[in-house]
Structure formats: C-alpha cells, structure tokens
C-alpha cells in the first residue's frame, strides 16, 4: 500500500510543553482522513510538522515516501495547504495570491482557479486583508485545489464559517477530492464535518494519537450494546477490558465498547441474556467516551 503520509514516533516540544508525542501515523493514498481532538490537542502542531514548517524534536515525517523536512521544498510539490488563518502580506490582492501559487506549483490549473473563484464570487482585485474569514478560506481553498494536489492538508477549514458556507465548502471539497483521487487530511473539532466527509479518522489528545483507523473498521470494532441479563446471572461487565463504560437503567445495562466488539458480543450471547441489542454508536458519543476515558477536563468542569 502507498502511504501518502507516514510519521514515525513523531514528537515536538514547544517551550517545555510536549505538544506532540510519539505519533506514528499512516494515511493511505486516496484516503480522506479526519483528524479530531479537543482544543490544544496538538492538531495544528502535527499539521505543521507534516508540512515541514516546524522541525520535530524526534521522529520523522514522510510525504509519499520523501522526508517532509526537505531543504529544496520538493517534497511539498503536490501538497496543497489551507491554513486555519490564511495570512498574506497586507497589500496582497486575490490576484497576487493566485500569482504566488501559479509561480510555485508545477501543476497549477488556471482554469480551475478561475472557476472556483467565480463560484465563490471572489473579486480578483480585492485586498485579501479586506475579505471576511470565510472568503479568505475560499481563496485559500480555490488556490490549493487549483494546484491539483496529490495531498491536500486543511487545518480546521470550516472553523468560523456559517452553516451554509460550511456545507457548501465541504461539498465542494469532497467533490474535487473525489474527482482527482486526492488524499485529504483535515483537522477539525466538529464531528459533524468529519462524519460527513471522512473515511479515516484519527483522534489526537494531549499530543498523543489515541486512535487512527478507517471509519469502517471503527464501526466494526465499536458498539453500543443494550443488554438485560437473566436475574442472578449478571456478570461484572465493567471489569471487561473492551468495555469503556457501563450505564444502568434498572435492569438494562448500556455498554460502550471501544474495541473487539465481536468478542464482547460472543460473551454476552454465551450468558443467554433476556434481551440484547447492539447498535452503531454516534461518532460524537464515541468521541466523548474516548475523551472521558482520558480524563479530559476543562478547568473545574469534568465530563460527567
């Protein structure tokens, strides 16, 4: 299998804080990879490391097999990037941003850039500094897509966009990426976005990669099981290592299973329960469970 992105025990320390620690990640070519994590999880840091903008403290990054920290920048040829806050010199107009991309990317597609900018209704002579955040993102996305990238990296692309623009933005993104068979990596803390477009998911928390898998595999592995055991034959399900959490409502047990759901279901069946049902959990529920297990707190607030 060809890996678009491969990191090996990647770590980054910033000002004494371990922002990314021992991240080993593999993204297959053609995947749409959603990187999710709470604020400060290290998503943006990881993206900057992937792009070779920041140097890792330890470990390495390969983009299509080539080191991302590349003195010639050649490894980033064919890698489109949409930053969370697009920054350009104050006197740059949209035309100038387009010109910059045209000059540095070999595969620049002027027709596509024009079509996308027209679609978004962006004036070429407008100063980038005068555009709204959404419009800046649209300019960045148009330029990134017009480079016909093999790998497209987006750092919280829908953050700060209104729901209508967000939906259109994602639709366009998915359409273009599917058309070009581009590998896409995007970070977000909006599970709704991730569920809509991603086929692979990575969960980052306090710089550690808790999970990196295909969504399909995740749905096979993770389950929410509702079960009523026979009276007197109730096992201590909370002691089962695969079970993340158990909720009780009367005799009904609700089990959150994070991995190896088949194994758990087999054990449940062997106990011949009165009633049982396994459903696919919602991604946000799963994410919250995962964060809860990691002791995610915000100040004095702890997830109940």
């Amino acid at each position: 299998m060809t890996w678009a992105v491969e990191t090996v025990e990647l770590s980054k320390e910033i000002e004494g804080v371990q922002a990314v620690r021992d991240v080993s990640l593999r993204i297959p070519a053609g995947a749409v990879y959603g990187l999710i994590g709470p604020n400060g999880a290290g998503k943006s840091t990881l993206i900057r490391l992937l792009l070779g903008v920041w140097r890792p403290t330890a470990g390495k990054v390969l983009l299509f097999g080539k080191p991302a920290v590349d003195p010639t920048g050649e490894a980033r040829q064919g890698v489109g990037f949409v930053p969370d806050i697009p920054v350009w010199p104050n006197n740059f107009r949209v035309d100038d941003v387009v010109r910059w991309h045209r000059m540095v990317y070999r595969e620049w597609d002027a027709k596509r850039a024009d079509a996308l900018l027209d679609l978004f209704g962006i004036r070429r002579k407008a100063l980038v500094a005068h555009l709204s955040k959404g419009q800046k993102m649209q300019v960045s996305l148009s330029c990134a897509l017009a480079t016909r990238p093999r790998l497209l990296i987006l750092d919280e692309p829908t953050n700060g966009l209104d729901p209508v623009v967000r939906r259109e933005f994602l639709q366009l993104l998915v359409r273009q990426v599917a058309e070009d068979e581009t590998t896409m990596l995007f970070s977000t803390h909006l599970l709704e976005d991730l569920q809509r477009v991603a086929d692979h998911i990575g969960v980052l928390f306090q710089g550690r990669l808790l999970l990196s898998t295909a969504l399909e595999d995740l749905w096979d592995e993770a389950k929410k099981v509702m079960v009523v055991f026979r009276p007197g034959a109730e096992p201590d399900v909370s002691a089962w290592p695969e079970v993340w959490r158990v909720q009780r409502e009367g005799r009904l047990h609700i089990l959150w299973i994070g991995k190896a759901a088949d194994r758990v279901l087999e054990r449940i069946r062997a106990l011949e329960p009165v009633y049982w049902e396994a459903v696919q959990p919602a991604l946000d529920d799963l994410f919250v469970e995962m964060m809860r297990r990691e002791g995610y707190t915000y100040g004095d607030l702890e997830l109940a």
Partner: protein
Amino acid sequence: MGIWNWHNAVAWRDWKQNAGMWFMAAGVMSFPVLVRIIAVGLLQSAVLAPGHRTVAVELVRAPSSYALLWVVAAAIFGVAAFWREWSHQGLPAVLAGPVGRRQVVMTKWGMGWLLLQGVLLLNVLVAVLVAVLLGEYEAGWPSYLYWWMSSAVGLSAVYALAFLAGLWTGTPRSTGWTAAFLIFGVHAWIQWMTTLVGRLFSDWLPASAIESLRQWAAYLSVSQYMVRSDLFFNGGSRLVLLAATAVFLGLAVASFDRLPLERMGRAWMFRWAEKAAVAVGGITLFVFAGALGLVMFQLLWQLRLGFGELPPATVRVLLFVSIGGAAVYLAWSLAKWAVRRRYSQV
C-alpha cells in the same frame, strides 16, 4: 501547467511587500547626492563659481560626509528583508509550499544586496559625473573607484548585520532596535561602560588601558568603519568588513535553516539571542546602578562626613559590585514576579 520557479516567486513576493521600504532606503541613500546636485545647480544659476566647484569636488573627496546616511540606508535594506514577515507573520505560509528554506533566505539576501549595490553604484556614478561635468574633478579615476569599492564592502557589512539582526528577532520593533544597536551602538555602549568605570576608579585603573579599550571599541560597530575615515581607508579594515560580511551571511543562512517558526511574534526568535540581550541589559544596569551608588557614597564620604580623600579602592570596588549586584538581583526578581503574575492571570 504553472511555471515552477521559486526564485522568481520569492523575489516577486519580496518585491511586493518590501518595495516601500526599499524606495525609502534608496531615497535616504541618494539624499546627499541629490541635495548636492541641486545645490550645484543653484550655485551655477547664481553664478557662484568657486562655491559650486568646492561642493562638486567634495562629492568624491569627502565620502565620510555620506557615510551616516548610507549606513542608515544599508541598515534599512537589511532590516526590510524580515520586517514585514514579522509584522504579518506570513512566513510559515511560504514555507508550507514547495520552497526550500535556503532558497528563501538566499533570495531575500540577494534581492536586498543587489538593490543596495545598484543604488550605491548609481549614486557614485552620478556624483562623479556631476564633478566631471563641472570640470572640477581632480581626485583622479582610481580615487573614486577606490571610494566606490570601499563603500561597497562597508555597506555590505552593514547590510549583512542588519539582515542577521532582522532574522534573529521575531517582531518588527525588536528588529529595528537590535539592528540599530548592533550597527551603531555597540562601540558607544562599551565606551560608556568603560568611561564610567574608568572615571570612578581613575586613581586605580591605568588610564591608557581605558583609553585603548575605548579606541578598540570602535572596531566593533560596523558603522564606525564608514563614519571614521581612518578606519575606512585602511586596507585591513576592508578585509575585516569583507570577512564580517561573509560570516554574517553564513550565520544568516545557517540560522534560517534552524529558524524556530513556532516562536514567531516573540522579541527574539532564538533563545540565546534573548539571553544575550538580557545579559547586555544586566551589565548596563549593574554598571549604572553600581556607579550611581558609589558616587552617592563618595559624596556622603567627602561632603557629609568630611573626609578629604576617597575611600580605599578595595572598599569602592566592593561597594560598586554590591550595589550593582543588588540592583540586578532586584530587577531580575521583579521581572520574574511580573512574568509569573502575567501568566497566572491568563
């Protein structure tokens, strides 16, 4: 298909964002020549022949009169390379694209340096042309060739130092101050410190040592080579400036390769530069506080207590060191407290 040419792209981006500062630097650099051309023109129209002749000849004969503005201009060219990068923080966006760090820094260096040398050459040519046209040029061709080459070397060193200062700092303000201090202020700082200490302990320290230290300090400020003609027209000095330019360029390329972009927006990009600045501040405070304390003690000793002579040198040294040390300790503690307080409120 796009045109993949990073050299043009980085150079074009630099042109777009730095043109204003470059024009300003070119204006500052051309100011003496322009003023003199106007002055000569006015003198000619006023039929003040002896006057305009003197002015014209001075164009070539007294390059030191240009030196200050030219040094300022070279410093602006150098500082401009990173000034706007720090103000809008757009460098990561550039380096996220298919451009290498070394290429970026070399293009930035090359653009500024070529413009500086171009404006310099143009100014020298215009100055000499004016003098020749007036028929008053007597210095001879080798003389202004020598002037141009010396200026080219001197200004390259100034440019290189400003470029390096701009690269090491992470905010426009610190870029300006650091470049100004390194180019114009190092010798003055050392001279102030040695003068102060030398005067306080003049009965104890050899005056010749203090004076030679003051003299040698001039070699540490690149601007002094240009401003002082005795340094400027010295062959060894030009070699020193040439070597300094090469070292500064090498340091700039090596530093940019390791530029910690995660520290953008800080006063200094490199931790050791921050520590060096703190050390300079600490030494300054130590000397000034120690000197002030010692002077007050001496006044008290002589005027209030009525002792005619100064206290023994050992006592004065002890007092100087104690007061200076206490001031530095106090300032350091206050700074740490302020930082803790600031972050505890965030």
